[in-house]
């Protein structure tokens, strides 16, 4: 039902777009007709360029998500071992969490230059803090009875974290990952638009910027469509499926 509703709005929106584009009141450089946008999308996909840039962006964000999530888990584990470490991590997270990655850009350029490493840094920054906060909250919310059952069975150390604490706090970890993804994806696109290409490839953000420079408005919109599609794919398909296959299947959603 929800889906049908959404698609009605979607069709309405596209029709309105086409209406405006065809009204002749706007230059196609401002408001390209849908046909031009989809043609540009088709050509960009067919030439492989858009796919390559998309691949570049996706690879970067996966790397960043992985590193950020692992770091968050490690820091979360460390901070649940000692109150001193916990207060340290909490202070660090409180300082760094509110900082948008893009605001760090000038500093990052000074430290790391403008290469891939800098974008990766921004992604990790976007992922790490929301993940860490959720890891810490999640670990604290692990039912005592589960933790003690695990310990009673002789599960200890890293194994206790990975086999009891991590699955037991999975609702929090997935929620953290959702926030992290959304933040990282936005940061990535913005950073790419600013950093430009290194070695010919610069990701989706860079692709948009390039279309802007060459004044290909339809091409710009075609990249926006790809960004929207990836957003929908990840948030509505991938996360949904992962949740359905884990916490919802396990009845852990109403913790």
């Amino acid at each position, binding site marked *: 039902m929800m889906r049908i509703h959404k698609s009605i709005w979607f069709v*309405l929106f596209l029709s*309105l777009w086409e*209406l*405006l584009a065809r*009204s002749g*009141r*706007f*230059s*196609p*450089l*401002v408001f390209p007709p849908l046909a031009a946008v989809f043609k540009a999308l088709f050509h960009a996909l067919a030439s492989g360029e858009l796919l390559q840039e998309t691949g570049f962006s996706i690879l970067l964000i996966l790397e960043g998500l992985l590193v950020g999530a692992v770091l968050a888990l490690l820091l979360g584990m460390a901070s649940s071992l000692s109150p001193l470490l916990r207060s340290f991590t909490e202070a660090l997270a409180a300082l760094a969490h509110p900082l948008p990655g893009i605001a760090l850009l000038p500093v990052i*350029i000074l430290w790391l*230059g*403008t*290469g891939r490493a800098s974008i990766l840094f921004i992604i990790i920054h976007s992922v790490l803090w929301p993940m860490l906060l959720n890891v810490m909250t999640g670990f604290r919310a692990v039912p005592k009875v589960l933790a003690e059952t695990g310990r009673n069975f002789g599960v200890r150390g890293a194994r206790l974290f990975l086999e009891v604490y991590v699955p037991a706090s999975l609702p929090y970890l997935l929620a953290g990952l959702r926030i992290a993804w959304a933040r990282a994806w936005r940061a990535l696109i913005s950073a790419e638009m600013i*950093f*430009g*290409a*290194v*070695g*010919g490839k*610069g990701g989706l953000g860079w692709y948009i910027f*390039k279309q*802007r*420079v*060459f*004044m*290909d408005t339809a091409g710009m919109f075609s990249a926006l469509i790809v960004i929207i599609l990836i957003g929908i794919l990840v948030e509505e398909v991938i996360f949904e499926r992962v949740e359905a296959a884990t916490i919802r299947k396990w009845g852990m959603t109403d913790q």
Partner: protein
Amino acid sequence: MKRGLLKLIALIIAASLTAAGCTPKETSGSGSRIAIAEQYGLAYAPLQIVKELKLLEKNLPGTVVEWKQLGNTAAIREAMLAGEVDAGFMAIPPFLIGWDKGMPWKIACGLSKSPVGLVTNREEIRSLRDFGDKDRIAVPQPGSVQHILLSMACEKELGDPHKLDNQLVTLAHPEGMSALLSGRDITAHFTAPPYLMKELAEPGMHEVLNGRQAMGGDFTFIAGVTTAAFHDKDPRAYKAFVRSIQEAIDYINNNREKAAAILAEAYKMPEAELLSYLLMEDAAYTTVVEGIEPFAQFMERNGYISKVPGELNEIVWEDVHDENP
């Protein structure tokens, strides 16, 4: 509930159509206001003179002049498309890209010629051939005059205009300079004054290629471009605009010391340094436009634009001097 929703939709559509009705902003130049966009650099020096001597106000009494300094050509182009800017200053390649895409604009005048050059921090690089796979070259933007010049040189010297494309890094001039001087990320920078001189003044830096070598001749570095709306609707304002630019250029060429004093203030540079720049052989201020043809030919040949202008008046307004008719 349903009824309410429909009403809302109707309202939105009505609102958007009304909004569409009043075309992008009140186009200016109607005697009351003229908006001009420029970028930063010594190549734009005559515009400082226009500002300081209030030449536009003199030639077009009663006009409010609005100056905008924008970060890159794409922003200027978008502002002109939106009707927020009447006249913009830029290099020929970005102008041609816009023209090719249907921007309603033409060149009104030349503004400057300027030395541009590819500076490297690696001693062993003496020509384009010496760049290895690991080298990174900074240019302000793809499609910028620096990028096109580099491609032209690559075509001449290496037989492939895209030879170095995968080694380009996009950096604005100031960031490009600091990256080059710190020896990080990039090994070469294609730039213009004042960055060009500042970089060459540092130890260990040298020029591999200059603009004239790349182009195979002289060319206009920065030109003045106005929208068709501005040109057509208020010929008086248009003429006053072109005249003001001409007067500013004449002023610089006839009063170098005085001009240097005014400009030193505007650019926060020592007066002597500025004067030496004005006297440089490669730097010249002139309304004559040069080099459109070779740029257009090259760009069309390599897919940056889809066509070359058939007649000159497709891309320049009636009274522009061009050296290659």
